[in-house]
């Protein structure tokens, strides 16, 4: 899932300073699962905004609305009947959702309430961890199912580097060395011969280096 972090209330209040009527949009997908922008978080942020403004003796009207997704226009269009009643849209979706809402309502200012952070997994209730950087050319078949791009601080394809110590990364003592994880896993799988093979230089053009990416499946197009 896409994992995000809530922006601080101070930052959000600063963005909203000139506005009194706000449409607060949550998203039922990834940001709900990582507890940052779902219906509950929309409720909490709306409450925080009302309390802050009330404390300063100022008014604010916040309409709470959580869409099924903000990355599909069918759902974004559900707020069209009343979007005009609000001065500004505050979105709690990931960066993709926020931008798509802005694209659908070109005359509305759309503000981000979260910082989109990574593609990751739920380690345990309330703990999320990065696993993928969407580099466009997966190498997990070579590295025992552990991604060297996302999990090595240097994204080394042939590691570890000299900063690996007792299985931890020099960047942070709490952080597992990605290449230690790869070697441990290859050993468990009996595939240590793979470790001997040099992985050639990666083609980064399918990653962000080739510019914004697009995927088309002609058979699905209407």
């Amino acid at each position: 899932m896409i994992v995000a972090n809530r922006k601080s209330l101070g930052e959000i209040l600063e963005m909203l300073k000139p506005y009194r009527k706000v449409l607060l949009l949550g998203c039922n997908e990834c940001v709900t699962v990582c507890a940052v922008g779902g219906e509950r978080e929309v409720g909490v942020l709306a409450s925080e905004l009302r309390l802050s403004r009330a404390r300063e003796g100022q008014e604010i009207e916040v309409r709470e609305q959580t869409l099924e997704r903000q990355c599909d226009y069918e759902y974004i269009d559900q707020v069209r009947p009343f979007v005009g009643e609000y001065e500004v849209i505050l979105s709690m979706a990931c960066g993709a959702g926020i931008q798509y809402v802005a694209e659908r309502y070109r005359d509305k200012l759309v503000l981000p309430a979260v910082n989109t952070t990574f593609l990751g997994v739920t380690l345990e209730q309330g703990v999320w961890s990065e696993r993928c950087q969407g580099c466009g050319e997966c190498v997990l078949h070579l590295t025992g199912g552990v991604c060297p791009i996302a999990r090595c601080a240097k994204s080394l394809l042939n590691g570890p580097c000299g900063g690996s110590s007792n299985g931890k990364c020099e960047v942070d003592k709490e952080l597992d060395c990605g290449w230690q994880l790869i070697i441990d896993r290859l050993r468990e799988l009996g595939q240590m011969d793979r470790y001997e093979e040099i992985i050639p230089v990666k083609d980064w053009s399918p990653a962000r280096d080739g510019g914004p990416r697009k995927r088309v499946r002609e058979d699905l197009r209407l």
Partner: protein
Amino acid sequence: MRLNYPPNVKVVRVPCTGRVDVLLILRAFESGVDGVYLAGCLEGECHFLRGNLRAKKRVEYVKALLEEVGLGAGRIEMYNMSSAQGQRFAEVAREMTERIRALGPSPVKKSLKREL
């Protein structure tokens, strides 16, 4: 026991403090209350095993939120007491009332009055 406690304390009954959601507390502040405290069972004696421990964490979370909002973390607290500790219940009610009185009325209340 015929114990007295300040009449400003309004008791909201819940099956377990684990039922108390962050939003419930925030809504209470939005409605203009000056302070909130949770009276949970003693730690380790939750009938639902972890209800009071979860409530404790949520109270900590709400403290941070109230600090951000500007109402101050002092307006919320978590207490633990058993159902046999009526004395303690009254003591906590007095303690919290004094604390909130020292902090003064919630600044949110002024805005609410204006709306009325």
